[in-house]
């Protein structure tokens, strides 16, 4: 019996491969991204390790502020500390280090080097001791005077600079020019390039650009010969008990971890799409096995008639599933290895990637096999179990095709599943159930399965006929045949289409959410922002902003009535709600080894962001509805918020709310103003007088300046005067409200494009599924196709008919996806609106949805090309005479 199954399998190698490809693609994606993360992490680790190799101890402040995405900023230490460290016994060499993210490198073309989302640009001071210096000098010299700069060679190349060139640096206070005198690199010989762009200046210049005059970010030290890192750290902390001292090893690990964390988050995000792809592949495996089992009904019955037991029939089919699973896993692993190393190569332009054998771990291999075999076997179980129900008598019947009818119980089941999905969705979205994300996910799954597999077959036949109408217009028989062929096996059509439905559903939801968010941003800006112009930062990198002197110059420009600057910074809320949050979401990192002296001193709380505003003008420029309290009362030590936040956190006017800032410690601010409307950005507004005292270096800079023109002023000419003010500042633009809205939505576009790209995988797999089903159906219809060719259907007509059939199935799947996607998006929007009643505006991007449908249809046609060709190649004579 097993031998029969194996033989059967080998005889159908093509089917084996096409079926495997669907799962293999998903596995390749998963293992490929895992490998990529592995390669990147390894490279980063070795780069960081090399970089901090010579440092044995780091002395730093214990005051630290989280600034989002796992990044933290430590409060600087006074300059004088460097001298104290140098005097500690056991310190061979030491140096104060300036390390800030307060400047951008401007390339020869006038554009900022690197992207806002890429690795940061870091300002360093030049350290004389090569062992303690960041990077290795590979060319030229260090900066001898304040007018000189050293760059890492990668950034110099990207900016188009050579040694001797004049380099432009956009700092927070001004844009300056320096002479390039040296190039550094990472690694022992300075050959490698690493993510961060480094700008190195003399210490005073670095302190000025870094906004920490008289301070260092931290102090590094190297130990005397024979002294271990631990011993050195202990010696220093004994001498300077008020500071935090960590070993060089720990410092290096911390740095590695913060970068690896980012790589990991990215990897997790990307792998979600791999799992979606595999879910799609499940449908294909399920469908393929259903078809195979149906086509084999007679064979199975014959086996049963000659005495095969049910268990043997089941085992034979499951064996096939296991083999397909194994083939998929191996194929997927091989493809994944290529994908991972290929992607890593693509990254190697921005930093050195270690070559050699990709770090395929046992985990990766196990994942590939567990998913490959597991998913295939699970997907095949139901069809296989059905095959055991074939009675021996079926051997005598003519029918070899699954024609079992779509029944009333199917309808009932479908509706039950839909209802259950709806309830779960409601629970999840309204946050009333125990695990909102799990509930939404499960409900999405249920609804998809209900619509695609249970209800889909009920509508597949009539829908196919309707969709065939344009193809059959004017009595064209190819279109009519295409429609009938899509309709003749509703279950098969529905399952095939379902694979596509999943991808289209997700694309639709993303498209609608993106359009709605964009519309919401537009609305918010037009409804709330009473400014005529905005002086805005065009990069999103932390630490970039508008030089301090610009705001005053804007305010005094003729025609400007109000210039209201806004700053943006981190805060930790240590109120009751914040403490509760911290308790529910405990931080993972502990004190660990290698740390001595004072441990981190931040109190527990919830990290958030605040805006620094000028109370006198801000509430005039930004309409936040009725205000409780008066902005006039917003002296130093006060703040404003929105009603939504106040209600959520239980704050009342006049409350003293505790907040923690690394720079100034924990302090209580008095709530003086509660605004009616919440426009979704940060809802903590601090007067600039307070803001300036509490933010970490790098954040004390205007992010935007809202400008209101005099009522009789000509706005374009005001804009011209403002343009002139910022013409030398490459990161600053003067925008009207429309441009401002567009620039605010900019990052959204990028993210949406990336998600579309990742979802393409699920759609490609769905296409493999369409091709696969079509191939099997054609096999089943060999005789019919031969007959059609005999009575005069040309090859061209035959190919067209099959392409049209695929298009019908694809459009069916796409339309289902659109409908489900729109339903999901409506559900989501209800919840989002409940949370953000003032800003969210639901939007159906009709052109995008039409484009999705057209692409779906075209994709179907694409999938049909090969099966159609194969069908046209059939010799009518052999087709007719084949039994």
């Amino acid at each position, binding site marked *: 019996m097993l031998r029969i199954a194996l033989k059967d399998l080998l005889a159908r190698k093509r089917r084996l491969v096409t079926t495997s490809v669907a799962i293999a693609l998903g596995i390749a994606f998963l293992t490929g991204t895992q490998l990529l993360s592995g390669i990147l992490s390894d490279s980063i680790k070795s780069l960081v390790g090399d970089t901090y190799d010579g440092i044995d101890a780091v002395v730093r402040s214990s005051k630290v502020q989280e600034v989002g995405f796992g990044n933290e900023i430590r409060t600087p230490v006074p300059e004088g500390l460097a001298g104290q460290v140098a005097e500690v016994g056991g310190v061979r060499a030491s140096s104060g280090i300036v390390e800030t993210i307060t400047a951008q490198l401007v390339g020869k073309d006038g554009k900022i080097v690197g992207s806002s989302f890429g690795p940061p640009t870091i300002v360093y001071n030049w350290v004389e001791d090569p062992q303690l210096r960041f990077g290795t000098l590979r060319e030229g010299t260090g900066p001898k005077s304040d007018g000189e700069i050293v760059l890492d060679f990668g950034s110099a190349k990207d900016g188009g600079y050579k040694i001797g060139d004049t380099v432009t640096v956009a700092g927070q206070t001004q844009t300056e020019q320096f002479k390039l005198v040296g190039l550094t690199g990472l690694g022992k010989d300075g050959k490698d390039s690493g993510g961060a762009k480094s700008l190195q200046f003399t210490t005073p210049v670095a302190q000025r650009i870094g906004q920490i005059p008289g301070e260092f970010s931290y102090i590094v030290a190297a130990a005397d010969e024979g002294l271990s890192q631990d011993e050195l750290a202990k010696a220093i902390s004994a001498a300077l008990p008020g500071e935090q001292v960590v070993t060089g090893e720990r410092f290096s690990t911390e740095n590695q971890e913060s970068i690896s964390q980012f790589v990991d988050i990215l990897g997790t995000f990307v792998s979600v799409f791999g799992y979606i792809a595999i879910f799609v592949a499940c449908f294909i495996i399920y469908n393929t096995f259903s078809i195979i089992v149906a086509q084999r009904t007679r064979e199975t019955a014959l086996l049963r008639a000659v005495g095969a037991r049910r268990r043997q029939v089941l085992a034979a089919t499951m064996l096939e599933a296991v083999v397909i699973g194994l083939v998929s896993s191996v194929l997927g692993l091989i493809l994944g290895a290529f994908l991972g190393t290929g992607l890593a190569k693509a990254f190697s332009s921005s930093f050195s990637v270690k070559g050699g054998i990709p770090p395929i771990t046992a985990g990766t291999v196990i994942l590939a096999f567990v998913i490959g075999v597991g998913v295939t076997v699970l997907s095949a179980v139901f069809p296989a179990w059905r095959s055991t129900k074939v009675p021996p008598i079926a051997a005598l019947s003519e029918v070899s095709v699954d024609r079992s009818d779509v029944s009333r119980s199917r309808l009932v089941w479908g509706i039950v599943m839909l209802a259950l999905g709806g309830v779960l969705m409601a629970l999840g979205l309204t946050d009333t159930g125990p695990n909102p994300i799990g509930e939404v996910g499960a409900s999405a799954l249920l609804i998809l399965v209900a619509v695609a597999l249970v209800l889909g077959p009920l509508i597949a036949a009539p829908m196919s006929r309707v969709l065939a109408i344009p193809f059959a217009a004017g*009595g064209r028989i190819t279109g009519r045949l295409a429609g009938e*062929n899509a309709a003749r096996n509703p279950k098969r059509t529905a399952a095939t289409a379902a694979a596509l439905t999943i991808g289209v559903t997700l694309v639709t939801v993303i498209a609608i959410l993106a359009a709605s968010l964009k519309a919401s941003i537009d609305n918010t800006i037009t409804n709330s922002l009473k400014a005529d112009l905005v002086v805005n930062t065009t990069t999103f990198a932390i630490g970039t902003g508008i030089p301090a002197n610009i705001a005053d110059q804007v305010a005094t420009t003729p025609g400007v009535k109000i210039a209201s600057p806004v700053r943006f910074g981190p805060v930790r809320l240590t109120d009751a709600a914040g403490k509760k949050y911290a308790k529910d979401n405990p931080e993972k990192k502990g004190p660990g080894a290698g740390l001595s002296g004072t441990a981190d001193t931040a109190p527990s709380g919830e990290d958030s962001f605040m805006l620094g505003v000028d109370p006198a003008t801000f509430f005039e420029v930004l309409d936040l509805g009725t205000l409780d309290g008066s902005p006039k009362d917003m002296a130093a030590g006060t703040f404003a918020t929105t009603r939504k936040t106040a209600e959520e956190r239980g704050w009342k006017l006049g409350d003293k709310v505790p907040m923690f800032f690394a720079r100034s410690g924990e302090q209580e601010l008095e709530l003086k103003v509660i605004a009616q409307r919440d426009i979704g950005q940060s809802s903590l507004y601090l007067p600039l007088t307070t803001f300036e005292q509490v933010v970490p270096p790098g954040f004390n800079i205007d992010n935007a300046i809202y400008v209101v023109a005099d009522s009789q002023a000509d706005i374009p000419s005001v804009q011209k005067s403002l343009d002139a003010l910022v013409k030398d500042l490459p990161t600053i633009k003067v925008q009207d409200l429309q441009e401002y809205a567009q620039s605010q939505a900019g990052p959204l576009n990028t993210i949406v494009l990336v998600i579309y790209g990742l979802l393409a995988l699920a759609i490609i797999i769905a296409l493999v599924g369409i091709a696969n089903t079509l191939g099997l159906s054609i096999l089943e219809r060999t005789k*019919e196709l031969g*007959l*059609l060719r005999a009575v*005069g*259907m040309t090859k061209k007509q035959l190919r067209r008919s099959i392409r049209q059939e695929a298009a019908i199935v694809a459009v069916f799947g796409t339309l289902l996806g659109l409908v489900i996607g729109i339903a999901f998006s409506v559900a989501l929007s209800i919840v989002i609106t409940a949370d953000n009643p003032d800003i969210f505006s639901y939007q159906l991007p009709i052109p995008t949805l039409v484009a999705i449908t057209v692409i779906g249809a075209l994709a179907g046609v694409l999938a049909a090309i090969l099966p159609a060709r194969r069908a046209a190649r059939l010799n*009518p*004579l052999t087709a007719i005479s084949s039994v």
Partner: protein
Amino acid sequence: MSTSEQTTFAAAGAVDAVKVYGEGDTEVRALDGVTATFERGKFTAIMGPSGSGKSTLMHCLAGLDRLSTGRVFVGDTYLDDLSEAQLTELRRDKIGFVFQAFNLIPTLSALENVTLPMDLAGRKPDQEWLDQVIDTVGLRPRLTHRPSELSGGQQQRVAVARALASQPEIVFADEPTGNLDSRSGGELLQFMRHAVSDLGQTIVMVTHDPTAAAYADRVVFLADGRIVSEMTEPTAARVLDLMKQLGD
């Protein structure tokens, strides 16, 4: 009918037709120099033992297969000169087919099956002729049925109607009654006879049943890929006699 067709005596024919399958030891000469013509407006039967080349001859005449050497023609067209695509069009426009089984597209209604070749050509059927054909084979009440809802005999009648509907040069039928009981078979043969006598059609039918052959105007006997005999105005008894003689 065009003038050239009127002046042509034969509806189809073969000249020195040779069809060889395989090579060397496995070589089979399915047709071994067949020369024959099939008269316009006549019902011709081809008979012979199994494996004698009947189907091969028919397939080659109908443009479904190509000869190794020799020529075949339908109307005024030599098939050997035609491209694959031209052959397809010729089958669609000039030739009707009835196979032993599986003649119909299961997803199309009886009427759609009948008009299929014309629909493929994008031509409107001649309604008057179509009505005549449908009535001749007695299909009127079954036109909207799917093949699965028809009996075997009815299915073959639909096939005959389809073969005749486009007013082809010639209709080829390969054992059309082979899968039918004798009553339905008799009916079908009656319809075919009728189509020739009353509607002026030309039919060539392969059969090994003397009773079926008796409906034809002429019988051609094949053996080992050659024409070994022929008979006009056949009766079942005479055909059977001749078969016995040839069998010896």
